[in-house]
């Protein structure tokens, strides 16, 4: 029988049990125990002095040159007579079928969904709302079937119910427990929601679309991959109209031209009202190069 001193209380004295492997994350034993790499870094808080400015990033995928032939496909529609693996496609009997309502690019075999909910994946930046404050951290509504969890170990700030945060998806379990990190609070401003599948078009290639909207409306805009967009200052009403238009017409070619037309025309209409307050207004940013294909 061990003595009281020999008995060890508390789970932290023991090595953690293995448990299921987490996709892409650190091994469980080291999770939550490592040094704070962000401790020496300036605070990621948005707009804080010396803080990092948020940058929209989107994975650049290799483009096939030339004209792209796209078509709307429905679940069960045959995409190809050969196996061509793609997200949201399935292969049966050596043939490829679509499983969703989407836009299929026959040139490079990409299948892009037209509808659907947001499924968190590692590295995404999401705009969340604090929906619960727990002892160990915060539960965030990330406009997804799954709740995001921001551990106290990942942040030194304190948040309240209803705070709007931008956070990075650090880890997603096989049972879809979503762990967030790099959270910073978004002060003021307004929030809008669109379908998450339209977000790549809102950001555009190398952030071209969002830069154009920011340049024309002078608003601060942060786009979460989960379909929430946060806007503050400037002509945010025009930015909302532009983003809603992108969400509605994302599948139609020539989107950049139409958004440029919308922003320029509407921006000119706004100028007479703004001129007395801001006589030294910067010239409007010229329209971006039109995109190739969809």
């Amino acid at each position, binding site marked *: 029988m061990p003595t009281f001193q020999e008995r060890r209380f508390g789970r932290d004295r023991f090595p953690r049990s293995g448990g299921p492997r987490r996709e892409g994350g650190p091994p469980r034993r080291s999770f939550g125990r490592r040094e704070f790499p962000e401790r020496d870094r300036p605070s990621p808080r948005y707009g804080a002095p010396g803080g990092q400015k948020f940058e929209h990033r989107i994975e650049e995928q290799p483009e096939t040159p030339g004209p792209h032939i796209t078509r*709307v496909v429905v*679940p*069960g529609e045959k995409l190809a007579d050969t196996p061509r693996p793609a997200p949201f496609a399935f292969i049966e009997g050596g043939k490829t079928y679509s499983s969703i309502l989407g836009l299929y690019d026959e040139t490079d075999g990409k299948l892009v*969904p037209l509808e659907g909910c947001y499924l968190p994946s590692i590295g995404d930046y999401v705009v969340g709302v604090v929906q619960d404050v727990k002892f160990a951290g915060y539960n965030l509504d990330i406009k997804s079937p*799954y709740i995001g969890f921001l551990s106290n170990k990942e942040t030194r700030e304190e948040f309240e119910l209803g705070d709007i945060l931008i956070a990075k998806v650090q880890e997603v379990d096989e049972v879809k427990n979503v762990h967030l990190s790099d959270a910073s609070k978004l002060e003021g401003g307004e929030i809008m929601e669109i379908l998450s599948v339209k977000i790549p078009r809102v950001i555009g290639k190398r952030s071209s679309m969002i830069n154009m909207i920011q340049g024309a409306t002078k608003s601060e805009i942060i786009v979460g991959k989960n379909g929430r967009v946060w806007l503050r200052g400037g002509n945010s009403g025009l930015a909302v109209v532009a983003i809603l238009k992108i969400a*509605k*017409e994302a599948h139609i*070619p020539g989107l950049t031209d139409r958004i440029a037309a919308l922003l320029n025309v509407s921006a000119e209409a706004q100028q007479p009202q703004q001129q007395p307050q801001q006589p030294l207004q910067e010239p409007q940013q010229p329209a971006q190069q039109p995109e190739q294909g969809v």
Partner: protein
Amino acid sequence: MEKMQLIVNGKRMDGRGLTDLRPLKIKAGVLNKADGSAYVEWGNNKVLAAVYGPRECIPRHDVNPYHAVVRCRYTMAPFCSMEEHGRSGPNRRSTEISKVIREVFENVVLAEHFPKTAIDVYMEVLQSDGGTRIAALTAAAVALADAGIPMKDIVCGVAVGKIDGQIAADFGKYEDNFGESDIPVALSQRTGEVLLLQMDGLLTKDELMKALDIAFEASKQVSELQIRALKERYAEKEAKGIAPARPAEGAQWQQ
């Protein structure tokens, strides 16, 4: 009471041939708040279907960590038919229909992509005239695709059966009530799998096999209209927008 004559000179009561369908209209994306929705008018049937999800599964004890839970609710409005239905809400008949429709969709929805969630399908029969479960299923299949839920196929269906000793398709109320047999069939056109098969009345084996062949042929038209409704949703936005008009995918189907 004298027996009603359902087939006269090879024509049915409303002038249709034996395997003709009633006029069918499908429209996708009719509700703003639902993730996916569809409205079907099939003869005198009017059905509205809405899909929510995948979303958080409440109550939590229904959660399955391996796949999404598919939940279906078929109800008839109190004003939907000639006989007053009284209170709306689930009853013995609609509970059964909800269950068989749920089993159809459990077979085609790729639910393992969304563990711990629920996909809710609501079907409301606003006006009924025979064959409402198939009309509801047709609407729900379109609504599921419209919600962006991955599926192996869009399920289509048709009711077949026997009236006045002959095998025919798509029965209205009187053919259903005074016919000899009624078989709602739901199937996947891509694979030819039968996903729902219920039968009232009696048929020989040969008659049943013939009825299934008719169901497979007749439901091809239903499937085409379902696909067209989904594609029209995206063609329609294009026509209304500033974009130059482009021939819509599937424009060869003329109603």
